[in-house]
C-alpha cells in the first residue's frame, strides 16, 4: 500500500492508486467469502451494485492495465486462437482471452458470477458481454441507453432507461440475495455526486496557464473514477487532488516537468501499450495535454434519479455528432488549446466513425491545427512510433507558426 513515512501526508496520487488496488482486493475477498462478484461495464450505473453492497470489477480497466504492462499482444492473440477476429475491439479480445485462461500475470481479477452491461459507450459491449454470459452460463443484466440523434435526451428515452434501472436493481437483488434499501441508494447517489464533482474540479485545473498537471495524469487517475466513484474514499482523494492542484496554481508548480510551450486536446482512449512512446514526443516538444473528453466522461452529474438517467445518456459515445463535436470544441476552448492530437483507435468503430467530421469541426471552429495517428487502445500491432513522431512534429511546426504570427 502507501509508500509514505508515518506522519507525512499521503499525496492524492498515492491514495488514488491505493483505492484502485483496494477495490480489486475487496472483490477477491468477497469471492473468497463465497459472495457473488460481477464484471461491470465502465459506464454502467455503478449506483446499482454499490447500493446493494455488491463487489464488481471492470474488464475495461483490466484490459487497459494489461495492455499498459505489455500483455496486450499475448491476450489478443489468444482470443484470435479462439476464433475472434483481429477486427474486434482489443479490450474485448483481452477480456475474452482472460475468461478462457482464467488468470493474468499483468492484472488478475476474480472470474464473474454475473455481468452488468451498458451500451452507452458502444454496442460492442453487448456482444462482448453476451459471449461472457453464455460461456459461463451466468446472468447478464443490460441497461440499454438509446443512441441520440438529437442534441438533448427526450423523455421517452428517460422513461425507458428508468424502467431498466429499476428492473436491473430488482434483477441484481434477486441474483445475489442482497436487499435494496432506499436510504442506502440515496447515500450512494450523494457520495457519487461528491466524487464526480471533485473529479471534475480536479480535471478542470488544466485550464490554468501553466497547467498544474500533466494531462496524461488523468488517464491514470481515471481508474478510480470508474471503479470507486460511489465511495467516500474516492471522493476524499479527488477532493485532495483538486486541492493539491489549487495549491500548485498559486506557486506555479506542475506535475508536467519542463516548459509548457503548447497546449493540446488529446482525443480518444489512451494508446495503453505505448504510453511512454506517446507521451515522450509531447514532452520533447513542450506539449501538455490540457483537454480530453474521455477522462471527464466519468464525471456523471445529477440532482435526482430522473437526472441520473439523463446523465448516463450524455457520455461521449452516446451522443449526436453535433453534441460530440461541441464537447470537444468547448473543452478545447476552456482549456486554451493550440492544437489537437486525434487517436484513430482501431478498436473503436463508434469513436473512429464520426471523428473525421468532428476533427473538421474542431479545426474550423477553433482555428487550430489537428493531426491524427493510427493506434489502438490495447493491441500493440497497430501503432507506429515513426508515424506518431512525424505527426507530432508537423503539429508543432504549425502551432509554432501560429504563435509567431500572433506575437
Amino acid at each position, binding site marked *: 500500500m502507501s509508500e509514505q513515512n508515518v506522519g507525512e501526508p499521503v499525496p492524492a496520487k498515492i491514495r488514488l492508486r491505493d483505492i484502485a488496488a483496494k477495490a480489486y482486493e475487496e472483490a477477491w475477498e468477497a469471492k473468497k467469502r463465497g459472495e457473488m462478484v460481477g464484471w461491470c461495464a465502465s459506464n454502467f450505473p455503478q449506483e446499482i451494485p454499490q447500493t446493494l453492497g455488491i463487489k464488481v470489477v471492470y474488464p475495461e480497466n483490466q484490459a487497459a492495465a494489461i495492455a499498459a504492462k505489455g500483455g496486450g499482444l499475448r491476450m489478443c492473440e489468444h482470443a484470435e486462437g479462439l476464433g475472434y477476429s483481429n477486427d474486434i475491439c482489443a479490450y474485448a479480445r483481452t477480456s475474452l482471452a482472460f475468461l478462457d485462461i482464467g488468470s493474468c500475470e499483468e492484472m488478475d481479477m476474480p472470474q464473474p458470477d454475473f455481468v452488468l452491461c451498458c451500451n452507452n459507450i458502444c454496442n460492442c459491449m453487448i456482444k462482448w458481454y*453476451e459471449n461472457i454470459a453464455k460461456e459461463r452460463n451466468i446472468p447478464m443484466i443490460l441497461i440499454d441507453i438509446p443512441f441520440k440523434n438529437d442534441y438533448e435526451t427526450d423523455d421517452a428515452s428517460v422513461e425507458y432507461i428508468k424502467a431498466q434501472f429499476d428492473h436491473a436493481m430488482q434483477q441484481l437483488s434477486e441474483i445475489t440475495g442482497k436487499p435494496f434499501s432506499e436510504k442506502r441508494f440515496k447515500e450512494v447517489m450523494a457520495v457519487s455526486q461528491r466524487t464526480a464533482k471533485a473529479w471534475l474540479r480536479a480535471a478542470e485545473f488544466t485550464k490554468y496557464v501553466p497547467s498544474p498537471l500533466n494531462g496524461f495524469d488523468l488517464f491514470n487517475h481515471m481508474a478510480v473514477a470508474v471503479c470507486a466513484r460511489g465511495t467516500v474514499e474516492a471522493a476524499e482523494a479527488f477532493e485532495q487532488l483538486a486541492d493539491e492542484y489549487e495549491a500548485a496554481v498559486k506557486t506555479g508548480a506542475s506535475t508536467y516537468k519542463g516548459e509548457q510551450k503548447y497546449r493540446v486536446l488529446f482525443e480518444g482512449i489512451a494508446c495503453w501499450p505505448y504510453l511512454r512512446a506517446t507521451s515522450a514526443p509531447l514532452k520533447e516538444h513542450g506539449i501538455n495535454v490540457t483537454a480530453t473528453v474521455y477522462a471527464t466522461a466519468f464525471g456523471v452529474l445529477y440532482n435526482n434519479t430522473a437526472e441520473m438517467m439523463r446523465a448516463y445518456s450524455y457520455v461521449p459515445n452516446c451522443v449526436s455528432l453535433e453534441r460530440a463535436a461541441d464537447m470537444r470544441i468547448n473543452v478545447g476552448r476552456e482549456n486554451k488549446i493550440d492544437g489537437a492530437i486525434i487517436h484513430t483507435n482501431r478498436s473503436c468503430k463508434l469513436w473512429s466513425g464520426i471523428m473525421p467530421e468532428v476533427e473538421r469541426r474542431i479545426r474550423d471552429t477553433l482555428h487550430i491545427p489537428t493531426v491524427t495517428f493510427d493506434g489502438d487502445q490495447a493491441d500493440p500491432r497497430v501503432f507506429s512510433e515513426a508515424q506518431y513522431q512525424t505527426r507530432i512534429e508537423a503539429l508543432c511546426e504549425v502551432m509554432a507558426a501560429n504563435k509567431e504570427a500572433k506575437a
Partner: protein
Amino acid sequence: MSTLNDTLQKLCDVAANPAAQLNAMVAQGKKAIGCFPVYSPAELVIAAGMTPFAVWGAEMEISSAKKYFPSFYCGIAQTCLEMGLNGKLDKLSGAMIPVLCDTLKCLGQNWKVGVKNVPFIPVIHPQNRKLPAGVEFMRKQYVAIAEKLSAISGRKVDKASLQKAIDTCNAQRAALREFSDVAALYPHLISPAQRNAVIKSGGFMDRAEHTAAVRQIIEQCRQQPVKEWSGHKVVTTGILADSPALLQVLADNKFAVVADEVAQESRQYRTDVPADADPFNALARQISDMEGCSVLYDPDKKRGPMIVDMVKKHGAQGVVFLMTKFCDPEEFDFPMVKKALDAAGIPMVSVEVDQQMRSFEQARTALQTFADVISA
C-alpha cells in the same frame, strides 16, 4: 403465359438494377423511402402512401465516403454513404437508418451531415426489446417516425392504413418463407443467384406485386417433378449473400442453398408482425419477438442452435458463414455459432465477403475444399 424462367428473370433484373426500379417509381409520381439495414419499418412507409426501397450498399469503389469513415469500416456503410454523397440516391424522399450497431450509428450521423438532398430519419431500436418498457419505447419511436413520413408524403398514418400495410408485409413474408422451402426442393430449377434475387428484389418493388411474382414462382416450381439433387446442400448465414461472383462460385461447386440465416434474406421475413389491437404496438412487438440476430440483444445466443435446427430440418450437409468484413456483431457471433455447430457435428466454412472484393479465388478454393469435406 409466362414461364418459370420468365418470372425468375423479371425478379433477377430488378435485383441487378435497383436504380432503374427507383427511377421508374419516381417517374410514375411515387415517393420512395430508403430502408437501410437491418430493420427499417417498411410498414410505416407503405402506410404513409410511399414505397420502401432497400439500401444495403452496392459493389462499387469508395471515394467520397473516405472523408467520413476510416479504412477499417464495413463496406455496406461505406457504399451506402458513397451513394448518398454522390447523389445516386437523390430520388429517395428520405433515408431511414437504424442504430443497431456502432457502424450504423456513425452512418446515420454522417448521412445527416454529408447528404443534403435526402432527409435522415433515425430509427432507434431498443436493445432491451423484450421488456414492456422496451416495447413501449419502440412504439413511441414508430409513432414519431410515422409523423415524419406523413410530413413527407402528405398522408397521415392511421391505424387502418398501418394494419393494411402490416398485412401486406406479412403476406410477403409468408410467401418468401414458402419460396425458401420450395427452392430447397428444386435446386435444379433455382440457382443460388436466382434464390437470392427473388428475395432481394422484394426490397425494391411494390410489396404486393412482388408477393404475386413469388407466389407464381412457387406454383410454377410445384408443377415440376422433385428430383434428387446430386450436389451439396448448405445453409448460409451472415449479413449479405448477394455477390453475383460468390453466388456463381456456389453454383459452380454444386451447392444448393436449402435455407439461409442471412440478415438481408430470411432475417427480414422469418418473424411476422403479430396481431394487436394497436398496430404501432404490433410493429414494436415484432422486434421483441425476433430471435438469433447478431444486432439484437440475445444473452442466450440462440443463433447457433437455430442454425443447427435449420440444418437438420432441411437435410443440409454444412453451413457457409459469409463473414462481412469489419462487421463486429457477426465476428462476435462467429465463435459461438461455430461451437454450437461443432457440438452438433455440423461442418462449417467461413468465407470473408466485402463489396469491394474483386478476386474470389480465395473463396473459390475454400468452397471447393468444403465441398470435398462435406461429401467425404
